[in-house]
């Protein structure tokens, strides 16, 4: 017995030692974080080293595959329902992605500003906990959805902030607010879109807190077409068809006539597996998403467009970007980036239309929407509010910028995670000093 025990121990010890030696031998030390005395003392170095070691552990990929199998035990579901509900934190940091092959525009050095004589109010910088809005991701069959949880206080604050922005605009500027629901409102089981998850109630509350703003009823427009392909199943965004119905609602509010969708030239990308799959890929239920990818159909503007994007409000060093990229490389897995090249700080689109200038404050939901506006405006200026007035980011005084650009209309377009995100609302708030 002693011999057997010793043999077993030697096997176990050998495995541990072999794995340890292999892991150290294969470790790419240059990919580990550098260790300095301050980082050692504040414990960040050892934490980062442990993380770095874990990420380079031998046979990581096959072991991750085994982990997915193991997760069938921890995230059990039966039959075709293929149900999964996990915590999700989305919001200000989410969606800020652009095409990798777009060059980085250079922000201009700001002119030295005179020291203000009056004390400026303290900026409410977001804390770590503020960054995300809280919710749930569910998979139901072959569809994944991010379900927001209402934070009524924040929603009201969002409405008030939009009103404050509207009040700061030149008097001739019309301000529109479009808060869109996401797919969770239409395709999730009842309890995921009622009560604290009811996006209709969130939008009503938000619009109710606004004044001096024209609200756009995108909810009704989308709800009437919920049986169509208006939201992706594997991605958190709407399809461009969904954006089109919201655009129709905007046209109703703004006094425009929206062309029929079949008048647009269209094309498509097949096999799109988006953000919801990426977020849930470790869970067994996500296989249904991978096996049933989305098709992204785009609709080209009916007028000529020329777009440049910029790092800041100086609008210098603009880089051309297609309003809709019809030739995305196969390697670009996030096909939603075909719209405006993804999220850029400022994008200026010159069109062949004869209308005025529209400024759009938006996050990524706006990217599929904006191309439709080319029909009504000669110039569209998009601003990603997440790219300004933060630490290390360029400054933006929205009222001043709006005057400089001579805008006629301002559209603020967001989805429910944004109106529940303290950090995002703070970013909006800081646009008006």
């Amino acid at each position, binding site marked *: *017995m*002693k011999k*057997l*025990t*010793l043999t*077993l*121990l030697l*096997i*176990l*010890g050998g*495995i*541990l*030692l072999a*794995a*340890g030696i292999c*892991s*150290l031998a294969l470790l790419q030390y240059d990919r580990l974080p550098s260790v300095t005395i301050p980082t*050692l*003392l504040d*414990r960040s170095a*050892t934490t980062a*080293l*442990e993380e770095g*070691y*874990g990420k380079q*552990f031998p046979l*990581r990929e096959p*072991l*991750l595959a*085994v*982990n*997915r199998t*193991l*997760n069938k*035990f*921890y*995230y*059990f*579901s*039966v039959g075709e329902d293929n*149900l*999964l*509900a*996990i*915590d999700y934190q989305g919001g200000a940091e989410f969606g800020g992605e652009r095409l990798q092959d777009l060059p980085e525009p250079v922000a201009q050095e700001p002119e030295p500003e005179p020291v203000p004589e009056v004390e400026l109010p303290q900026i409410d910088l977001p804390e770590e906990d503020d960054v995300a809005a*809280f919710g*749930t991701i*569910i998979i139901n069959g072959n569809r994944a959805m991010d379900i927001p*949880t209402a934070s009524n206080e924040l929603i009201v604050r969002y409405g008030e902030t939009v009103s404050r922005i509207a009040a700061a605009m030149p008097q001739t500027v019309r301000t529109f607010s479009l808060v869109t629901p996401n797919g969770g409102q239409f395709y999730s*089981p*009842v*309890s*995921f879109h009622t*009560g*604290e*998850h009811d996006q209709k109630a969130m939008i009503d509350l938000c619009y109710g807190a606004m004044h001096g703003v024209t609200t756009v009823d995108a909810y009704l427009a989308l709800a009437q077409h919920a049986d169509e392909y208006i939201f992706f199943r594997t991605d958190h965004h709407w399809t461009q068809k969904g954006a089109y119905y919201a655009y129709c609602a905007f046209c109703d509010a703004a006094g425009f006539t929206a062309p029929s969708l079949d008048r647009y030239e269209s094309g498509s990308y097949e096999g799109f597996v988006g953000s919801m799959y990426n977020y849930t890929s*470790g869970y067994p239920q996500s296989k249904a998403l991978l096996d049933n990818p989305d098709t992204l159909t785009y609709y080209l503007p009916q007028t000529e467009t020329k777009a440049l994007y910029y790092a800041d409000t100086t609008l210098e060093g603009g880089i051309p970007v297609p309003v809709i990229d019809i030739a995305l490389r196969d390697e670009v897995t996030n096909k939603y980036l075909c719209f405006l090249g993804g999220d850029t700080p400022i994008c200026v689109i010159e069109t062949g239309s004869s209308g005025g200038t529209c400024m759009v404050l938006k996050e990524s939901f706006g990217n599929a929407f904006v191309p439709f506006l080319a029909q009504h405006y000669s110039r569209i200026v998009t601003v990603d509010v997440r790219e300004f007035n933060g630490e290390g980011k360029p400054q933006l005084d929205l009222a001043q910028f709006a005057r400089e650009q001579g805008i006629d209309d301002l559209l603020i377009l967001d989805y429910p995670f944004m109106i529940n995100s303290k950090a995002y609302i703070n970013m909006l708030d800081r646009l008006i000093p």
Partner: protein
Amino acid sequence: MVFSSLIFLYVFFPLCLLAYFLVPGLKGKNGVLIAASLVFYAWGEPLYVFLLVAVAAANYGFGRLIGRLAVGSRERKAALVCAVVLDVAVLCAFKYTGLLVQTANDLLHLALPVPQIALPLGVSFYIFQSISYVADVYRDEVSPQKSFWRFLLYVSLFPQLIAGPIVRYRDIAAQLEKREISVEGIFYGAMRMCIGLGKKVLLANYAGKVADQLLASVGTVSGTWFGMVMFAFEIYFDFSGYSDMAIGMGHIFGFKYPENFDLPYTAGSITDFWRRWHISLGTFFRDYVYIPLGGNRRHQLLNLLIVWSLTGLWHGASWNFLLWGLYFFVLLYAEKKSRRVLGKIPAVIRRIFTLFLLLVGWTVFYYTDFGQMVNALRVMFGGAAAYSGEVGVVMLNALPLFIVCAVGCTPLPRLFGLMLGGIASREGETEPTWCAYAYRIGVFVFDAALLFASTVSLIGSTYNPFLYFRF
């Protein structure tokens, strides 16, 4: 560094083992363990490692001093008081200063700056170990340790340093100087370590994830109760898993640590629960606080109040832990006074009622924010909808885990192991039978599978909380 990390399992521990078994002689092995323990601690606490050594040095000095003074003399008592005051002062300074200043600010409307002192990992464990040492020397129950290095080894030994059990000096004093390292002991230790790792990584981590998901924003009665059940699983499998790993590693190095958990959720009363839960803490408070205060003989109510207040606060510098301790004080006192009545209630009902009381207790323990705690209790007792589809999906996803955790809390796994072990080693056999060989291989395969699954899980999941950072 924590035991349930890849770098510990595949770099630190194998290197430590290699050095331990290659270095000849007990002195050398002790040296390896001291060095490993200090590196282990400094990895997570690069500055506080000096505090650890300083505490060890001070208590070593007091131990020597107390040992030199006459038994029963005032000087001896004064030396003990000084040692205990110093230990408690260190604990209070690092653990409770922030809480006290903040509370003073809140109550007296002051604006005193609240010191941001990071709590040294494991400070409550090694301070209590040190107190047990000087107290035992004072009582003349053990001789003072002559070698500082051996004493430093006792205080800093990494298997029990950051999450217990609270090992008393008297329990391992002899093993510091002479211990038997056997193949059987190492095998038992290795298997126990794998079981503990599996409890922590494969059960506690996932149960904790479900609990956090349901308890972060309580919405339904069923969801909150289920979340609290999963938290009860988490804290049991986490804590007892760490204790298993500590005991297992101790065996590998030749140390025999006392057991710290004994199926606490099978307890028939709260009194019984505390005999089975974190046993080393309960016996510490009994022997070093309750009995010296007079125990059952005088001021029993006051003594219980003090012990349970301290037990609560020991778990963290937050008033909810005090409330948690007081909750058990009330329950234990009530049990003492109604022993006869309770004895007439069927055991099954008593067990279920005990579990109910424990879940309420864990609710107080879970929420450091009073508002959230009250809200959770309100929801648990009917202050919200009974059920939602969302909770249904979470419960469905967690169903297999719930079943395994529930079975794991019962004596069934232990009985199953004993039954197989009994079959494998039938009485009267002088030589091991093939059954005994098969059993041993079976145990090995099972535990190796736990190690493999834990490794896989550690690679695939970023959720690996360390619950004892507040202790």
